[in-house]
């Protein structure tokens, strides 16, 4: 028993903060007038601030969509940049209402950390980036390499598993901040930079000579990335989950931010239900019935968010691949609104 006292005392502040919240997250959010959204410290395409401090990205759009669903205003959201290490504590302690920070859905995170994953907004996998002049064409040639990565990520564990499974010695150099990983890799401290493949493409843009580096073909893990909320508040969990589903469903139905007003008069009952013309689906998640209309009008559907932030026309130039709709051969499949 005595060995339980110390941690409990130390957690006092955290506990006090959590009880003070008391009300549900939705009530809290409505009372303060904005959603507090945990994002990365700068990952182009996913969550990245521009020179004016405006955040953009695929993960940012999830938060903006939630704000649109709750307030009808996609700008009613404030961002908290978090390191990989800080992110879960920030969410658990109530510092942020939702964490949308290229976070991998794993069993331990879902079950032991008091978190709920609201779905997947990007199917990713871990890859390796190396200098072209190393002449490496496969990750299996990386024996004896030093590997730079972030601490507190699934990446750190995957790379350990991969090198161990293939019986290759390696040296891990793990930094807390992504920018320092990039700087150390750029300086030549490591032969290899490993993180989620999307992250590799994004971080490559920050290197001195992006053209000198290549991403190896191997993808060594499953990294389903998605927004996360706290356990124990099903209403808020539903809002997060269905915001994402609404964006995916909208793409499937061909509803975009530009045609959403016309689509309101569509004859398609699925579209009518989604946009709140028929039925009262918004009530079920504690919102107004035009919740999904607001999301699509203010933020757009999944395709729009993808193309604007990470798609082929952006510096990242990522193709839809497995992140295409199920009907186009991808993994994206949202349950129906009915």
């Amino acid at each position, binding site marked *: 028993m005595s*060995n*339980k*006292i*110390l*941690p*409990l005392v*130390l*957690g*006092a502040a*955290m*506990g*006090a903060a*959590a*009880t003070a919240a008391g009300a549900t997250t939705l009530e809290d959010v409505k009372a303060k007038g904005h959603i507090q959204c945990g994002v990365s410290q700068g990952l182009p395409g996913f969550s990245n601030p521009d020179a004016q401090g405006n955040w953009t990205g695929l993960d940012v759009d999830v938060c903006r969509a939630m704000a649109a669903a709750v307030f009808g205003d996609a700008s009613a959201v404030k961002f908290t940049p978090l390191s*990989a*290490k800080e992110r*879960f*504590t920030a969410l*658990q302690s109530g510092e942020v209402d939702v964490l949308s920070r290229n976070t991998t859905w794993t069993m*331990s*995170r879902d*079950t*032991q*950390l*008091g978190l709920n994953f609201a779905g997947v907004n990007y199917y990713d996998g871990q890859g390796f980036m*190396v200098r072209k002049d*190393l002449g*490496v064409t496969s990750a299996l040639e990386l*024996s*004896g*390499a*030093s590997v*730079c990565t972030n*601490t*507190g*990520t699934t990446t*750190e*564990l995957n*790379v*350990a*598993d991969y*090198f*161990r499974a293939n019986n290759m*010695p*390696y*040296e891990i*150099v*793990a*930094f*807390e*901040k992504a920018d*320092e990983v990039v*700087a*150390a890799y750029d*300086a*030549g*401290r490591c*032969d290899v930079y490993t993180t989620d493949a999307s992250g590799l493409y994004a971080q490559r843009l920050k290197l001195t000579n992006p053209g000198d580096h290549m991403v190896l073909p191997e993808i060594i893990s499953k990294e389903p990335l998605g927004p996360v909320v706290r*356990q*124990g508040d099903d209403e808020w969990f539903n809002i997060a989950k269905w915001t994402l589903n609404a964006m995916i469903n909208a793409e499937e139905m061909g509803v975009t931010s530009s045609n959403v007003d016309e689509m309101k008069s569509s004859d398609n009952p699925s579209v009518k239900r989604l946009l709140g013309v028929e039925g009262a689906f918004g009530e079920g998640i504690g919102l107004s019935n035009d919740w999904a209309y607001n999301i699509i009008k203010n933020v757009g559907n999944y395709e729009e968010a993808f193309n604007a932030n990470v798609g082929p026309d952006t510096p990242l130039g990522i193709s839809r691949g497995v992140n295409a709709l199920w009907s186009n051969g991808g993994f994206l499949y949202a349950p129906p609104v009915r």
Partner: protein
Amino acid sequence: MSVMEQDSAGAPARASLLNDPKVRGIFYQVVLIAVLIFVGYNIVLNTAANLERQNIASGWGFLENTAGFGIIQSLVPYSETSSYGQALFVGFLNTLLVAIVGIFFATIIGFVVGIARLSNNWVISRLAYCYVELVRNVPLLLQIFFWYFAVLRAVPGKREKWSFFFDSFHLNIAGLRGPKPIWEDGSYLIAVALLIAIVASFVISRWAHKRQDATGQQFPVFWTALGLIIGLPLITYFVTGMPMHLEHPVFVDTGPRIRQGFELNVGFNLIPEFLALTAALAIYTAAFIAEIVRAGIQAVSHGQTEASHALGLRQGPTLRLVIIPQAMRVIIPPLTSQYLNLTKNSSLAVAIAFPDLVSVGGTVLNQTGQAIEIIGIWMAIYLTLSLVTSAFMNWYNQRMALVER
């Protein structure tokens, strides 16, 4: 006497309990303690309830689970299959290593610079002054970044090297490599010999002191001790048939480019993260120690030097036997604070990927989500380290303190 008279008279003069300052004092203290206990108890209950409600795991069981991540530098055997507890232990040892090496160099640099500041040579004293002002006025984190990122770019890349000391030490971006001693059977005798030499030096030193007190004759203690400490293990080494050899780092410069460079885990390697962190900590703290040393020496009045010279002591013994012992009384207490600062500042290691206690603990925290336990471990370890350092320095201070007769 008057008190007794009043008591025997049935204590008529006693004021009401309400006005008795002693009773009041006790009452308020009891109330304060009760409130503190109540608040503490509620905090504990509240936290437990919150953790339970949020479904966050708690307890110490996680320490035995498999860590699964690698650590670049470890003083004890560690692999990905080791437990979280072992990972934290590796982090703790790394913190200890940085603290000890950092304190060692900070003390040396600090004393040299502190004495240099008092030098009569204008250039030397100005240089020392510039060093102190420059270093202590730049935030430590920036200095760590400077050493890591600026110096990292200046040394050769992984596939080249700078060699020195007869080609036995090599520096490149992957670290400072050198030969590693490999101990074989029977090599423990060398350690035993070293121990005997150290004990013998102590005994000789005490004997020499006694003899000098009694007869006034001096004995070359320093040279004898040095000879013993180096000579005895060396003799043992040859007598036992050289049960130790050096493992030299292997530099590969042929074959595929990815395989070129030093082979991992062959020879002895100081990773650049360790070098940068230790250098930054030592140089930063040394600036403060230099000022402390200067203040300590200046606190000894000049009359002491003059008196010592009048007794016929030369400059060296004057400094060693008269000035320094008195200066140490002023130096030691603030020096202790600097040692504590250095130890605690070593937690900035996390910024440059050195796996110290905070860095490894942070990874464990993230993996297990058990923030309260990890933060508890952090606090307990830093507190213990600091208290042990303080206890040692207080003991040393007492030894050096003015003994009044």
